[in-house]
Protein backbone atom coordinates (compact mmCIF):
# COMPACT_ATOMS: atom_id res chain seq x y z
CA UNK A 1 0.00 0.00 0.00
CA UNK A 2 2.81 2.35 0.95
CA UNK A 3 4.69 1.48 -2.22
CA UNK A 4 1.63 2.30 -4.30
CA UNK A 5 1.24 5.59 -2.49
CA UNK A 6 4.93 6.43 -2.96
CA UNK A 7 4.64 5.51 -6.61
CA UNK A 8 1.71 7.90 -6.92
CA UNK A 9 3.69 10.60 -5.15
CA UNK A 10 6.53 10.19 -7.62
CA UNK A 11 4.13 10.42 -10.56
CA UNK A 12 2.38 13.42 -9.04
CA UNK A 13 5.69 15.17 -8.58
CA UNK A 14 6.25 14.69 -12.31
CA UNK A 15 2.76 15.94 -13.20
CA UNK A 16 2.02 12.48 -14.56
CA UNK A 17 -0.66 11.35 -12.13
CA UNK A 18 -4.28 11.33 -13.34
CA UNK A 19 -6.33 14.23 -11.97
CA UNK A 20 -8.61 12.22 -9.70
CA UNK A 21 -5.67 10.51 -8.02
CA UNK A 22 -3.98 13.91 -7.68
CA UNK A 23 -6.94 15.20 -5.69
CA UNK A 24 -6.82 12.24 -3.32
CA UNK A 25 -3.08 12.36 -2.88
CA UNK A 26 -3.15 16.14 -2.34
CA UNK A 27 -5.62 15.50 0.46
CA UNK A 28 -3.30 12.87 1.90
CA UNK A 29 -0.31 15.19 1.59
CA UNK A 30 -2.04 17.78 3.71
CA UNK A 31 -2.06 15.37 6.65
CA UNK A 32 0.92 13.09 6.15
CA UNK A 33 4.16 14.70 7.33
CA UNK A 34 6.51 11.87 6.18
CA UNK A 35 4.92 12.08 2.74
CA UNK A 36 5.55 15.84 2.65
CA UNK A 37 9.18 15.24 3.64
CA UNK A 38 9.48 12.74 0.81
CA UNK A 39 8.03 15.32 -1.59
CA UNK A 40 10.65 17.78 -0.35
CA UNK A 41 13.47 15.28 -0.96
CA UNK A 42 12.19 14.62 -4.48
CA UNK A 43 12.62 18.35 -5.12
CA UNK A 44 16.16 18.23 -3.74
CA UNK A 45 17.01 15.23 -5.91
CA UNK A 46 15.75 17.05 -8.97
CA UNK A 47 17.74 20.17 -8.16
CA UNK A 48 20.84 18.06 -7.51
CA UNK A 49 20.55 16.17 -10.79
CA UNK A 50 19.88 19.33 -12.79
CA UNK A 51 22.71 21.19 -11.09
CA UNK A 52 20.62 24.32 -10.72
CA UNK A 53 23.57 26.18 -9.24
CA UNK A 54 21.71 27.06 -6.07
CA UNK A 55 22.19 25.62 -2.64
CA UNK A 56 20.13 22.49 -2.15
CA UNK A 57 19.08 23.13 1.43
CA UNK A 58 17.22 26.31 0.51
CA UNK A 59 15.49 28.10 3.37
CA UNK A 60 12.89 29.77 1.13
CA UNK A 61 10.11 27.29 1.84
CA UNK A 62 10.60 27.52 5.60
CA UNK A 63 10.59 31.31 5.47
CA UNK A 64 7.51 31.42 3.27
CA UNK A 65 5.70 29.05 5.63
CA UNK A 66 6.60 31.26 8.58
CA UNK A 67 5.34 34.37 6.83
CA UNK A 68 2.18 32.69 5.63
CA UNK A 69 1.31 31.87 9.22
CA UNK A 70 0.30 35.51 9.58
CA UNK A 71 -1.66 35.54 6.32
CA UNK A 72 -5.37 34.76 6.19
CA UNK A 73 -6.33 31.54 4.48
CA UNK A 74 -8.12 31.75 1.17
CA UNK A 75 -11.66 30.50 1.36
CA UNK A 76 -13.54 32.36 -1.31
CA UNK A 77 -15.74 29.87 -3.15
CA UNK A 78 -16.26 32.16 -6.15
CA UNK A 79 -12.57 32.07 -6.97
CA UNK A 80 -12.02 28.35 -6.61
CA UNK A 81 -10.79 26.64 -9.73
CA UNK A 82 -13.26 24.24 -11.26
CA UNK A 83 -12.63 20.61 -10.47
CA UNK A 84 -12.18 19.11 -13.91
CA UNK A 85 -12.61 15.60 -12.56
CA UNK A 86 -15.74 16.06 -10.54
CA UNK A 87 -18.77 14.17 -11.90
CA UNK A 88 -21.25 16.18 -13.91
CA UNK A 89 -24.22 17.40 -11.88
CA UNK A 90 -27.45 15.46 -12.47
CA UNK A 91 -29.64 18.49 -12.90
CA UNK A 92 -28.84 20.62 -15.89
CA UNK A 93 -29.23 23.80 -13.91
CA UNK A 94 -27.09 22.64 -11.02
CA UNK A 95 -23.53 23.87 -10.65
CA UNK A 96 -20.70 21.99 -8.94
CA UNK A 97 -19.78 23.31 -5.52
CA UNK A 98 -17.01 25.84 -5.64
CA UNK A 99 -17.33 26.42 -9.35
CA UNK A 100 -17.19 30.10 -10.23
CA UNK A 101 -20.18 31.49 -12.07
CA UNK A 102 -19.10 32.48 -15.59
CA UNK A 103 -19.25 36.22 -16.06
CA UNK A 104 -21.71 35.91 -18.95
CA UNK A 105 -24.09 33.85 -16.80
CA UNK A 106 -24.09 36.52 -14.13
CA UNK A 107 -25.83 39.08 -16.32
CA UNK A 108 -27.40 36.84 -18.96
CA UNK A 109 -29.73 34.94 -16.65
CA UNK A 110 -31.35 37.96 -14.98
CA UNK A 111 -31.60 39.66 -18.36
CA UNK A 112 -33.31 36.61 -19.84
CA UNK A 113 -35.69 36.45 -16.90
CA UNK A 114 -36.51 40.12 -17.26
CA UNK A 115 -37.02 39.72 -20.99
CA UNK A 116 -39.40 36.80 -20.56
CA UNK A 117 -41.35 38.65 -17.86
CA UNK A 118 -41.65 41.73 -20.05
CA UNK A 119 -42.77 39.60 -22.98
CA UNK A 120 -45.46 37.86 -20.93
CA UNK A 121 -46.68 41.20 -19.64
CA UNK A 122 -46.85 42.67 -23.15
CA UNK A 123 -48.70 39.66 -24.55
CA UNK A 124 -51.15 39.76 -21.63
CA UNK A 125 -51.82 43.43 -22.24
CA UNK A 126 -52.44 42.88 -25.95
CA UNK A 127 -54.77 39.93 -25.26
CA UNK A 128 -56.74 41.93 -22.71
CA UNK A 129 -57.04 44.86 -25.10
CA UNK A 130 -58.25 42.63 -27.90
CA UNK A 131 -60.75 40.79 -25.72
CA UNK A 132 -62.41 43.30 -23.48
CA UNK A 133 -64.28 46.55 -23.96
CA UNK A 134 -62.32 49.74 -23.63
CA UNK A 135 -63.35 50.38 -20.08
CA UNK A 136 -62.06 47.03 -18.87
CA UNK A 137 -58.61 47.81 -20.17
CA UNK A 138 -58.25 51.44 -19.40
CA UNK A 139 -58.40 51.24 -15.61
CA UNK A 140 -55.49 48.81 -15.69
CA UNK A 141 -53.27 51.55 -16.95
CA UNK A 142 -54.82 54.53 -15.24
CA UNK A 143 -52.55 55.80 -12.56
CA UNK A 144 -54.23 57.07 -9.42
CA UNK A 145 -51.30 59.41 -8.92
CA UNK A 146 -52.09 61.30 -12.09
CA UNK A 147 -55.86 61.13 -11.90
CA UNK A 148 -57.90 63.39 -9.72
CA UNK A 149 -60.69 61.86 -7.64
CA UNK A 150 -63.91 61.79 -9.57
CA UNK A 151 -66.76 63.69 -8.01
CA UNK A 152 -70.01 61.81 -7.72
CA UNK A 153 -72.05 62.80 -10.71
CA UNK A 154 -75.57 61.78 -11.56
CA UNK A 155 -74.82 62.60 -15.24
CA UNK A 156 -72.43 59.74 -15.50
CA UNK A 157 -73.61 57.16 -17.91
CA UNK A 158 -72.22 53.68 -18.15
CA UNK A 159 -68.50 53.67 -17.65
CA UNK A 160 -66.93 55.86 -15.02
CA UNK A 161 -65.43 58.40 -17.33
CA UNK A 162 -64.63 61.92 -16.17
CA UNK A 163 -62.49 63.71 -18.77
CA UNK A 164 -62.58 67.00 -16.90
CA UNK A 165 -61.16 65.48 -13.77
CA UNK A 166 -57.99 64.19 -15.33
CA UNK A 167 -54.87 65.99 -14.24
CA UNK A 168 -51.61 66.46 -16.16
CA UNK A 169 -49.51 64.64 -17.14
CA UNK A 170 -51.70 62.62 -19.43
CA UNK A 171 -52.45 59.17 -18.06
CA UNK A 172 -52.84 56.08 -20.15
CA UNK A 173 -55.93 56.17 -22.26
CA UNK A 174 -58.90 54.05 -23.11
CA UNK A 175 -59.09 54.07 -26.87
CA UNK A 176 -61.87 53.37 -29.23
CA UNK A 177 -60.86 50.76 -31.77
CA UNK A 178 -60.09 52.38 -35.07
CA UNK A 179 -59.58 55.86 -33.65
CA UNK A 180 -56.27 57.48 -32.90
CA UNK A 181 -57.53 59.74 -30.16
CA UNK A 182 -58.63 58.65 -26.74
CA UNK A 183 -62.30 58.15 -26.22
CA UNK A 184 -62.22 58.79 -22.56
CA UNK A 185 -60.13 58.96 -19.42
CA UNK A 186 -61.13 56.47 -16.83
CA UNK A 187 -61.06 56.95 -13.11
CA UNK A 188 -61.42 53.87 -10.98
CA UNK A 189 -64.27 54.17 -8.56
CA UNK A 190 -63.65 53.70 -4.87
CA UNK A 191 -63.52 50.07 -3.84
CA UNK A 192 -63.41 48.78 -7.38
CA UNK A 193 -59.76 47.69 -7.37
CA UNK A 194 -60.79 44.08 -7.79
CA UNK A 195 -62.67 45.02 -10.91
CA UNK A 196 -59.62 46.20 -12.81
CA UNK A 197 -59.10 42.85 -14.43
CA UNK A 198 -61.27 39.84 -14.34
CA UNK A 199 -59.80 37.40 -11.75
CA UNK A 200 -59.62 34.60 -14.29
CA UNK A 201 -57.54 36.71 -16.63
CA UNK A 202 -55.31 37.85 -13.82
CA UNK A 203 -54.91 34.28 -12.63
CA UNK A 204 -53.83 33.26 -16.12
CA UNK A 205 -51.34 36.07 -16.16
CA UNK A 206 -50.00 35.14 -12.72
CA UNK A 207 -49.56 31.52 -13.73
CA UNK A 208 -47.72 32.56 -16.86
CA UNK A 209 -45.64 35.03 -14.96
CA UNK A 210 -44.86 32.66 -12.08
CA UNK A 211 -42.28 30.81 -14.14
CA UNK A 212 -40.00 33.80 -14.07
CA UNK A 213 -41.07 35.60 -10.93
CA UNK A 214 -39.51 35.22 -7.49
CA UNK A 215 -41.40 32.88 -5.12
CA UNK A 216 -42.06 35.64 -2.58
CA UNK A 217 -43.58 38.08 -5.03
CA UNK A 218 -45.53 35.22 -6.60
CA UNK A 219 -47.07 34.37 -3.24
CA UNK A 220 -47.88 38.00 -2.59
CA UNK A 221 -49.60 38.32 -5.94
CA UNK A 222 -51.60 35.15 -5.43
CA UNK A 223 -52.61 36.32 -1.96
CA UNK A 224 -53.75 39.62 -3.38
CA UNK A 225 -55.73 37.80 -6.04
CA UNK A 226 -57.51 35.65 -3.47
CA UNK A 227 -58.18 38.64 -1.26
CA UNK A 228 -59.53 40.63 -4.18
CA UNK A 229 -61.82 37.79 -5.15
CA UNK A 230 -63.20 37.69 -1.62
CA UNK A 231 -63.70 41.46 -1.52
CA UNK A 232 -65.56 41.58 -4.78
CA UNK A 233 -69.05 40.69 -3.56
CA UNK A 234 -69.25 43.22 -0.73
CA UNK A 235 -68.47 45.99 -3.21
CA UNK A 236 -71.57 45.09 -5.18
CA UNK A 237 -73.64 44.70 -2.05
CA UNK A 238 -72.58 48.08 -0.68
CA UNK A 239 -73.31 50.03 -3.85
CA UNK A 240 -75.69 52.83 -3.04
CA UNK A 241 -77.34 53.27 -6.40
CA UNK A 242 -78.28 50.95 -9.24
CA UNK A 243 -75.81 52.73 -11.53
CA UNK A 244 -72.95 52.16 -9.12
CA UNK A 245 -73.96 48.54 -8.74
CA UNK A 246 -73.71 48.12 -12.48
CA UNK A 247 -70.33 49.84 -12.46
CA UNK A 248 -69.09 47.61 -9.74
CA UNK A 249 -70.21 44.47 -11.50
CA UNK A 250 -68.35 45.53 -14.59
Amino acid sequence: MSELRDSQLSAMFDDELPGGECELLALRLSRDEPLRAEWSRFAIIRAAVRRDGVRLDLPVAARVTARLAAEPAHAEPSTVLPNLHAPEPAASGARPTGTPIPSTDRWLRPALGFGVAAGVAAVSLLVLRAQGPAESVAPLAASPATVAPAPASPERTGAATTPAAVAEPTPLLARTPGLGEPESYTVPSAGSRSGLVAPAQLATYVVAHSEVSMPLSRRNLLSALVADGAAEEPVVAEAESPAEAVDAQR
Partner: protein
Amino acid sequence: MTVDESDLALVRRVQRGEKGAFDLLVLKYQHKVVKLVMRYVRSTAEAEDIAQEAFIKAYRALPQFRGDSAFYTWLYRIAINTAKNAIASRERSPVEYDLDLQDNESSYAAQSRLRDPDTPEGLALTEEIRRTVNAAIEALPEDLRTAIVLRELEGLSYEEIAATMDCPVGTVRSRIFRAREAIDRRLREVFDGGLGRAEELG
Protein backbone atom coordinates in the same frame (compact mmCIF):
# COMPACT_ATOMS: atom_id res chain seq x y z
CA MET B 1 -3.52 13.45 -19.27
CA THR B 2 -2.88 17.16 -19.25
CA VAL B 3 0.24 18.63 -17.77
CA ASP B 4 0.16 20.49 -14.48
CA GLU B 5 -2.77 18.64 -12.94
CA SER B 6 -0.88 17.92 -9.75
CA ASP B 7 -0.12 21.61 -9.37
CA LEU B 8 -3.75 22.43 -10.03
CA ALA B 9 -4.85 19.94 -7.39
CA LEU B 10 -2.62 21.71 -4.88
CA VAL B 11 -3.71 25.16 -6.07
CA ARG B 12 -7.34 24.19 -5.58
CA ARG B 13 -6.59 23.14 -2.03
CA VAL B 14 -4.88 26.46 -1.31
CA GLN B 15 -7.85 28.31 -2.76
CA ARG B 16 -10.11 26.37 -0.43
CA GLY B 17 -8.12 27.63 2.52
CA GLU B 18 -5.42 25.00 3.00
CA LYS B 19 -2.16 26.89 3.37
CA GLY B 20 -0.16 23.67 3.74
CA ALA B 21 -0.76 22.82 0.10
CA PHE B 22 1.07 25.99 -0.87
CA ASP B 23 4.13 24.78 1.05
CA LEU B 24 4.28 21.82 -1.31
CA LEU B 25 4.29 24.12 -4.32
CA VAL B 26 7.05 26.21 -2.75
CA LEU B 27 9.10 23.08 -1.99
CA LYS B 28 8.68 21.92 -5.55
CA TYR B 29 9.63 25.18 -7.23
CA GLN B 30 11.91 27.04 -4.83
CA HIS B 31 15.12 25.87 -6.51
CA LYS B 32 13.86 26.78 -9.96
CA VAL B 33 12.63 30.18 -8.84
CA VAL B 34 15.89 31.03 -7.08
CA LYS B 35 17.82 29.93 -10.14
CA LEU B 36 15.58 32.10 -12.31
CA VAL B 37 15.99 35.15 -10.06
CA MET B 38 19.76 34.71 -10.06
CA ARG B 39 19.74 35.73 -13.69
CA TYR B 40 18.77 39.21 -12.48
CA VAL B 41 20.76 39.54 -9.25
CA ARG B 42 24.21 38.28 -8.34
CA SER B 43 23.80 37.83 -4.64
CA THR B 44 22.46 34.46 -3.56
CA ALA B 45 20.98 36.03 -0.46
CA GLU B 46 19.15 38.64 -2.50
CA ALA B 47 17.90 35.99 -4.91
CA GLU B 48 16.48 34.00 -2.01
CA ASP B 49 14.81 37.11 -0.59
CA ILE B 50 13.26 37.94 -3.94
CA ALA B 51 12.12 34.35 -4.42
CA GLN B 52 10.54 34.42 -1.00
CA GLU B 53 8.74 37.65 -1.84
CA ALA B 54 7.57 36.20 -5.15
CA PHE B 55 6.05 33.20 -3.40
CA ILE B 56 4.25 35.45 -0.91
CA LYS B 57 2.89 37.55 -3.78
CA ALA B 58 1.82 34.38 -5.57
CA TYR B 59 0.00 33.17 -2.48
CA ARG B 60 -1.85 36.47 -2.14
CA ALA B 61 -2.76 36.49 -5.84
CA LEU B 62 -3.78 32.83 -5.92
CA PRO B 63 -7.53 33.56 -5.67
CA GLN B 64 -7.21 35.30 -9.04
CA PHE B 65 -5.35 32.36 -10.62
CA ARG B 66 -7.90 30.70 -12.88
CA GLY B 67 -5.74 27.96 -14.35
CA ASP B 68 -5.60 29.51 -17.82
CA SER B 69 -1.85 28.87 -17.84
CA ALA B 70 0.32 26.37 -16.01
CA PHE B 71 0.94 27.30 -12.40
CA TYR B 72 4.70 27.48 -12.81
CA THR B 73 4.36 29.76 -15.84
CA TRP B 74 2.23 32.10 -13.76
CA LEU B 75 4.65 31.82 -10.82
CA TYR B 76 7.67 32.54 -12.98
CA ARG B 77 6.07 35.72 -14.30
CA ILE B 78 5.53 36.88 -10.74
CA ALA B 79 9.13 36.02 -9.85
CA ILE B 80 10.54 37.92 -12.82
CA ASN B 81 8.42 40.99 -12.07
CA THR B 82 9.43 40.85 -8.41
CA ALA B 83 13.09 40.66 -9.40
CA LYS B 84 12.78 43.59 -11.81
CA ASN B 85 10.94 45.66 -9.20
CA ALA B 86 13.60 44.86 -6.61
CA ILE B 87 16.34 45.99 -8.96
CA ALA B 88 14.47 49.20 -9.82
CA SER B 89 13.81 49.87 -6.15
CA ARG B 90 17.43 49.30 -5.25
CA GLU B 91 18.56 51.73 -7.95
CA ARG B 92 16.12 54.40 -6.79
CA SER B 93 16.82 54.32 -3.06
CA PRO B 94 20.16 54.25 -1.24
CA VAL B 95 21.18 51.26 0.80
CA GLU B 96 19.96 51.42 4.37
CA TYR B 97 22.52 50.82 7.05
CA ASP B 98 20.75 49.25 9.93
CA LEU B 99 23.66 47.38 11.45
CA ASP B 100 25.41 48.81 14.41
CA LEU B 101 28.95 47.81 13.62
CA GLN B 102 31.96 48.85 15.64
CA ASP B 103 34.56 48.39 12.93
CA ASN B 104 35.13 50.61 9.93
CA GLU B 105 34.30 48.24 7.14
CA SER B 106 31.34 48.86 4.87
CA SER B 107 28.07 48.08 6.57
CA TYR B 108 26.54 46.87 3.34
CA ALA B 109 29.33 44.41 2.74
CA ALA B 110 29.02 43.21 6.29
CA GLN B 111 25.27 42.88 5.97
CA SER B 112 25.60 40.88 2.78
CA ARG B 113 28.15 38.63 4.34
CA LEU B 114 25.97 38.09 7.39
CA ARG B 115 23.10 37.10 5.14
CA ASP B 116 25.27 35.14 2.76
CA PRO B 117 23.77 31.69 2.56
CA ASP B 118 26.90 30.31 0.94
CA THR B 119 28.50 29.60 4.26
CA PRO B 120 31.11 26.82 4.38
CA GLU B 121 28.59 24.57 6.08
CA GLY B 122 25.91 25.33 3.52
CA LEU B 123 28.27 24.73 0.63
CA ALA B 124 29.49 21.52 2.20
CA LEU B 125 25.96 20.22 2.66
CA THR B 126 25.01 21.10 -0.90
CA GLU B 127 28.09 19.35 -2.19
CA GLU B 128 27.42 16.32 -0.07
CA ILE B 129 23.82 16.04 -1.25
CA ARG B 130 24.95 16.33 -4.83
CA ARG B 131 27.59 13.70 -4.39
CA THR B 132 25.14 11.36 -2.70
CA VAL B 133 22.57 11.75 -5.43
CA ASN B 134 25.12 11.20 -8.18
CA ALA B 135 26.52 8.16 -6.43
CA ALA B 136 23.03 6.74 -5.99
CA ILE B 137 22.24 7.27 -9.65
CA GLU B 138 25.48 5.57 -10.71
CA ALA B 139 24.56 2.59 -8.57
CA LEU B 140 21.18 2.15 -10.18
CA PRO B 141 20.42 -0.64 -12.67
CA GLU B 142 20.66 0.54 -16.26
CA ASP B 143 16.91 0.76 -16.96
CA LEU B 144 16.21 2.72 -13.78
CA ARG B 145 19.14 5.05 -14.38
CA THR B 146 18.12 5.78 -17.95
CA ALA B 147 14.54 6.48 -16.93
CA ILE B 148 15.42 8.88 -14.09
CA VAL B 149 18.06 10.71 -16.14
CA LEU B 150 15.69 11.17 -19.07
CA ARG B 151 13.10 12.50 -16.69
CA GLU B 152 15.15 14.73 -14.39
CA LEU B 153 17.98 15.82 -16.60
CA GLU B 154 16.30 15.91 -20.02
CA GLY B 155 12.84 16.77 -18.72
CA LEU B 156 11.04 14.25 -20.95
CA SER B 157 7.47 13.24 -20.23
CA TYR B 158 6.62 9.64 -19.33
CA GLU B 159 5.21 9.15 -22.79
CA GLU B 160 8.38 10.41 -24.43
CA ILE B 161 10.50 8.21 -22.16
CA ALA B 162 8.30 5.23 -23.00
CA ALA B 163 8.85 5.88 -26.69
CA THR B 164 12.58 6.27 -26.16
CA MET B 165 12.95 3.15 -24.03
CA ASP B 166 10.38 1.21 -26.05
CA CYS B 167 8.28 0.18 -23.07
CA PRO B 168 4.81 0.99 -21.69
CA VAL B 169 4.19 4.24 -19.81
CA GLY B 170 3.34 2.23 -16.70
CA THR B 171 6.78 0.67 -16.77
CA VAL B 172 8.37 4.10 -17.04
CA ARG B 173 6.39 5.29 -14.05
CA SER B 174 7.49 2.27 -12.06
CA ARG B 175 11.15 2.64 -13.05
CA ILE B 176 11.25 6.32 -12.17
CA PHE B 177 9.59 5.64 -8.83
CA ARG B 178 12.04 2.85 -7.98
CA ALA B 179 14.99 5.01 -9.01
CA ARG B 180 13.76 7.85 -6.82
CA GLU B 181 13.14 5.47 -3.96
CA ALA B 182 16.72 4.22 -4.13
CA ILE B 183 18.18 7.74 -4.31
CA ASP B 184 15.90 8.93 -1.54
CA ARG B 185 17.03 6.09 0.72
CA ARG B 186 20.62 7.27 0.40
CA LEU B 187 19.63 10.89 0.86
CA ARG B 188 17.72 10.14 4.07
CA GLU B 189 20.85 8.56 5.46
CA VAL B 190 22.75 11.79 4.77
CA PHE B 191 20.11 13.95 6.39
CA ASP B 192 19.80 11.64 9.38
CA GLY B 193 23.53 11.08 9.81
CA GLY B 194 24.73 14.66 9.30
CA LEU B 195 27.68 15.97 7.32
CA GLY B 196 30.27 13.51 6.11
CA ARG B 197 27.82 10.64 5.97
CA ALA B 198 27.98 10.51 2.18
CA GLU B 199 31.66 9.70 2.22
CA GLU B 200 31.04 6.90 4.70
CA LEU B 201 28.36 5.49 2.46
CA GLY B 202 30.67 5.63 -0.52
